[in-house]
Structure formats: structure tokens, C-alpha cells
């Protein structure tokens, strides 16, 4: 061996400039700061996109969006309505996702809830006092949604059947069921039921303070607070958290895992069914294959990004609703179709998703130690 065994570093030595370290205990203000920066960056990309297709300057773009979402009392109510519906579904999804039951079947559960509501409206709309009918519709829609969710939940708890695909497939079964009944109820061969009980308004949710959506928004607000306490303070909420963390721990604690799975999914899907009732009874007064309108998927994102905290979920659904109503305004100003809002929603969400990395990790640039002499 030569005497000088340890040669100097070669110039060609590759050295990672940067490596990634997990962060612990990021202060809340910093986490939210990072998220806000992400949203602002996302908005800037959105503005560029809109500028590209409309030649509007970016400030005007946001002016137009703001105007579309919050520009008048009726627009504010429209935005609140959309937000309440989206939030209601996410509130429904939160317990099952917290339990790590990937319920992507909200669409189907909404449709089924809406379907039974519409059926009751058609059958009893002109023969039953509206108040009683509304109560029955609410109850039955919850029940129908719950049953729709219980089917995959049963097989999940029994055979550990993959619930993601099961619930997804249930969406299409529900969709076909809705189309079937729409065709049956449709008297004009137009593949549409039309507005149900337009004269008697049987089963329509009443206006409060002259606002069509006031009652609905109020109900969802109450549900938000209720869900917060259910998840945080109730024994059932505790069981959900334990089962979600580890089924072994749950069994160790004496929790009947199968029962908790079924109960939680029933509650979760029941609320989604209830959202279908709200859509039919308070908003559209009809049923169609578009009743769920993709909200069941967007709601998953809301629940996830809000980390199952109902108040954080409220903020996120507000943001997404603002974006989509604003985008719709631009679309209608320029006579484009409504899908522009999905593009903008996607862009903003990409940025929020990416920003979580900077909350959980940090990049460290290597300090090369002093050169060995």
C-alpha cells in the first residue's frame, strides 16, 4: 500500500446538492401561510390560463370571478348553496375516510337519496302536507343512502373486499337506476322528469326569510358543528379514530370492528343520501343523472385536505365553490362551457396538494465540511 492512502476529493465527485428531511411540529401559522402561498400561486396560474383564452388581463379576471361568485345577493346565495351542498357531502365522507374506508361512492349515495326523495314527491306531493312529506323524504333519503353504503361496508367487514372499487361500481348502478326511473316517470319521452310538483310545491323545502336556500344552508351549518363534536368528543368518534389508525388496536381495546365499520359507513352514506334530498328538495326539484354532478368526488378532496376537521373543510369548500362560480361567470361572459371551472379547480388543488410537502418536509442544502488538509 502506498503511504498516502487517502487521496483528495476528485473534482468529479458527485454530491447531492440538496436532500430532504422530515419536519416535526410546524407551527400552525406557518402551515397555513404555506397553504395560502400555494393558493395564491395557483390563482396566478389560473389567471394566466384565463388570459390565454380570453385576453382579459389577470386583474380583470379576478374582478370578474369575484363578481360572479359574490357580485350580488343572489349570486352570494348561489355560491352559499353550492358550498353547502359540497360541504354536506364532505361532512358525510369525513367519518368513513377518517376510518380509512375509501368511500368513493358518494355520487351513488347522493343519487339514491335524491331518487327516493323524488319518488316520494311524485307519489305523495299532492296528497300529503308538505311538512310531513319533507320529514319523510329526509328520513327515507338518509335510509336509502345508508343502505347503499352498507352493501360494500358489509363485504368490507366480512371479506375485506376492496371498498374503493365496490363503492365506485355502486355509483354506476345507482346512475342506471335513476335513468330507469326517469324514463318511467317521464311522460313526454324526453328523458327528463321536469320540475316536480311545480304548482303545488309539494315536498319543496320552504323559503326562509324569502331565501330559497336559507334553510338548507342553516341545516348544513348545524351539521358542520354536529359533525365536529361527533368526531372529536363522542365515543363513536373515538372508535372511528381508533379503527382508522389500526384495526388491531381497535380489537385490543375491545371494539367490535365490523360493527363500527358498518355503523360509520351507514352514517356516512346516510348523510350523502341526505345531500341528495337537499339537492332535489331545495335546489333543483327534479331528479336526473346529473343530480350528483361530480360533487361526490370533489367532496373527497375537501374532506381530505381539511384533514376531517369540519371547520377546515368549510374553508376549503368555500374556496373551491368560489373558484367554480367565478369560473362559471367568466365562461358565461365569454360564452364558453362550464368545464372551465374544473380546470381551475384542478390547478388550485394541484398547488394545495403540492404545498403539503413543504409543510411536512424541508430541503437541506449540504454544507461541505472544511477541506481535509
Amino acid at each position: 500500500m502506498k503511504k498516502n492512502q487517502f487521496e483528495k476529493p476528485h473534482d468529479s465527485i458527485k454530491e447531492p446538492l440538496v436532500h430532504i428531511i422530515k419536519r416535526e411540529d410546524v407551527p400552525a401559522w406557518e402551515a397555513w401561510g404555506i397553504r395560502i402561498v400555494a393558493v395564491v400561486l395557483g390563482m396566478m396560474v389560473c389567471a394566466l390560463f384565463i388570459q390565454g383564452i380570453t385576453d382579459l388581463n389577470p386583474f380583470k379576471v379576478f374582478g370578474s370571478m369575484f363578481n360572479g361568485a359574490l357580485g350580488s345577493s343572489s349570486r352570494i346565495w348561489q355560491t352559499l348553496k353550492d358550498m353547502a351542498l359540497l360541504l354536506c357531502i364532505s361532512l358525510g365522507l369525513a367519518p368513513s375516510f377518517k376510518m380509512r374506508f375509501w368511500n368513493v361512492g358518494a355520487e351513488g349515495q347522493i343519487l339514491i337519496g335524491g331518487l327516493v326523495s323524488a319518488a316520494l314527491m311524485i307519489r305523495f306531493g299532492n296528497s300529503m302536507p308538505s311538512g310531513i312529506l319533507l320529514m319523510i323524504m329526509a328520513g327515507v333519503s338518509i335510509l336509502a343512502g345508508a343502505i347503499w353504503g352498507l352493501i360494500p361496508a358489509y363485504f368490507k367487514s366480512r371479506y375485506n373486499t376492496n371498498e374503493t372499487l365496490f363503492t365506485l361500481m355502486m355509483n354506476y348502478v345507482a346512475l342506471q337506476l335513476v335513468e330507469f326511473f326517469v324514463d318511467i316517470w317521464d311522460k313526454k319521452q324526453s328523458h327528463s322528469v321536469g320540475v316536480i310538483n311545480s304548482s303545488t310545491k309539494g315536498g319543496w323545502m320552504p323559503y326562509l326569510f324569502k331565501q330559497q336556500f336559507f334553510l338548507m344552508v342553516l341545516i348544513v351549518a348545524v351539521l358542520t358543528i354536529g359533525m365536529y363534536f361527533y368526531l372529536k368528543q363522542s365515543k363513536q368518534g373515538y372508535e372511528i379514530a381508533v379503527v382508522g389508525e389500526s384495526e388491531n388496536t381497535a380489537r385490543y381495546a375491545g371494539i367490535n370492528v365490523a360493527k363500527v365499520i358498518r355503523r360509520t359507513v351507514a352514517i356516512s352514506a346516510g348523510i350523502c343520501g341526505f345531500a341528495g334530498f337537499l339537492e332535489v328538495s331545495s335546489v333543483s326539484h327534479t331528479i336526473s343523472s346529473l343530480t350528483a354532478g361530480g360533487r361526490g368526488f370533489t367532496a373527497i378532496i375537501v374532506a381530505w385536505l381539511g384533514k376531517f376537521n369540519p371547520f377546515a373543510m368549510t374553508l376549503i369548500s368555500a374556496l373551491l365553490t368560489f373558484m367554480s362560480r367565478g369560473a362559471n361567470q367568466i365562461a358565461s361572459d365569454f360564452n364558453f362551457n362550464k368545464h372551465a371551472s374544473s380546470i381551475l379547480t384542478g390547478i388550485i388543488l394541484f398547488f394545495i396538494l403540492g404545498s403539503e410537502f413543504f409543510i411536512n418536509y424541508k430541503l437541506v442544502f449540504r454544507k461541505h465540511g472544511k477541506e481535509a488538509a
Partner: protein
Amino acid sequence: MTLTTFIAWICAAITFGTIIMFGSVGEILTEKSGNLNLGVPGIMYLGAIASLAGAFFYENGNPAPVPWVGAFISLVCALVASLLGGLIYSFLTVTLRANQNVTGLTLTIFGGGVANFFGGSLVKLSGGVGQISVGTTSSAVRAQIPFLSTALGPISTLLFSYGFLAYLAVVIALIAHWVLNKTRVGLNLRAVGENPATADAAGINVTKYKYVTTCIGAMIEGLGGMYYVMDYVKGTWDAGGGLEALGWLAVALVIFTSWKPKNAIWGAYLFGFCYWIYLYIPSSLSAALAKMLGAANVTHMQNLYRMIPYIVTIIVLIIVSKRKRRENQNPASLGISYFREER
């Protein structure tokens, strides 16, 4: 049922199956790397709209468009657009470690938005009126093999009456099968999906494998989108959201195949067979059922028959979950981001 009807049914099944075969083979590869990409419908949308837009601009800008040039441009556009979709997904989930489920769903929303927005507005944006249509390119994509497609009567119809993409789908599925099971790259890839920490310790670049596979998978999925617009709906835009449902079916088919590309070939055709069953159920049976259910019109029953592929999927899902075999399970680390220094 006559032989002709039966053959027509099978041909329809194969055409339909081709779309989801692309989707599911792409997703099988992606999932083999441990990435659960729920953005398949979005990526298929991106591939679809890009192929349509590429062909549209070519045909619009050229007084005498050459069909095969249009098809080539269309193909390249589909591949590039779906590659971008795959890159977005990989960057977010692999580099930035975002949640795979949410990222995938967002990609589906985004892809659907881009496709339907431009599908509806492309003509208007370029200053024209009317619906988008690229007949020349579509005809090239749909071109059948000369001579063979007619020479043997029904057998020709059964085997040779499809555009080149239908055969490409089968070839890709077979190649994917070969790569996964016979090559070093395939072995390494399966290891990444099973246990990335082990693969990493064995000197496999987990990040690279996840990126490359997800992007290749996305490009294959994008071909499914191209096949949908150019062949299935013949060079127009379908604003009805049909492609999204097919994208989800492709995701479902992955489990159906127990992550084996070879199974995707017959699985996809079987799905297609089930999908079209509603057109071929004897009308006497339909009438009886309609009467039983109180449906005024026999055609209403088709709404119920259309559930069949989904219900079949559910039943298969339950049966598979009841008898577990180790080799038929999903890759063990599916859906989990990998970080070497996590401790």
C-alpha cells in the same frame, strides 16, 4: 340470435374492450410501481382531447389533409398530453409525496375539465362555428386491413375489421406481460411496488422506476382516450362524460385481472361483451321483465341492463376477496408514498 348479430356483438365488445384495455394495462403498470393512480379517466381525457385537437388543427390548416399524417399527429399529441398528465401525477405523489388518492381524483377532475372545455370550445376558439369533427384523421385511424378484413367472411369480420389501435392494445398488453415477468426491469419494477425499501436497498432507483412506469402507463392510457375519440365516436367530441365512466371501468378491470396484463385482454373483451348485452337481450324477455316492473316501454329496461358490467365487477370483486391467493393480491405497497429516510 343469428350468427351475424352475434358477430356484431363480439365486434362491438372488442371495440369497447380496446378502450379499457389501454386504460387498464396502463394502470396495471402504474400500480405495479406502487402508484395507485385514480387519475386514469383524467389521463384518458387528456389523450382524447389532445389527439382530437392535433388532428383538428392539422385538418383545419391544410386544404388537403393526408389521412395518415393526421393520424400520426393525432397519435403524437395523445402521447404527449397523457405523458404530461403522468408527469403531474408523478411529480406530486413521488417527488412531493402528496396523497395518491386525492391527487388522482384531482387529475381526473382536471383532465375532464380540460377535455370537455376544449372539446366544446375548440371550434369557437379558433374562430369557427359548429361541432368539432376530424373525419379524415378518424378514417385513417379506423382503416381496416385491406383484403384480410373481407376475404374470409365472418372470420374476417371477427378478426380483421378493426383499426390499428385495437391490435396495438393487444400487442402492448403482451409486451407488458413479457416485461413484467421475463426481464430484469420487470423484476425490479415488481419489487418497487411490493416493497420499495427493499428495492431501494437492492440498488434500484425507486423514484426513477415510479416516474418512468407511471408516465409510460399514462401514455398507454392516453392511447385509450385517442381510440375513444378517433375510433369509438369517429372523430367527434362526446360531451356526455362517457369516457370518464370507461376510465373508471379500466381501473376496476385492474383488480379483475389480478394485476396481470395478459388477463386484461380477455377481461376487457368480457367487459365489452357485458356492456353491450343490453342491446342483445331477447325482446320477449325484456317485455316480460318490463311488465313485471311496471315499465311502460320495453326500451326502458335497457337502463337496467346497463348495470350488468358493474354488477359483474362487484361479484368478481367479492369472489376474489373471499379466496385470497398471495400471488393474486395487489402490490403490497400500493398507495403509499416512499421516503427513504422516514423513520
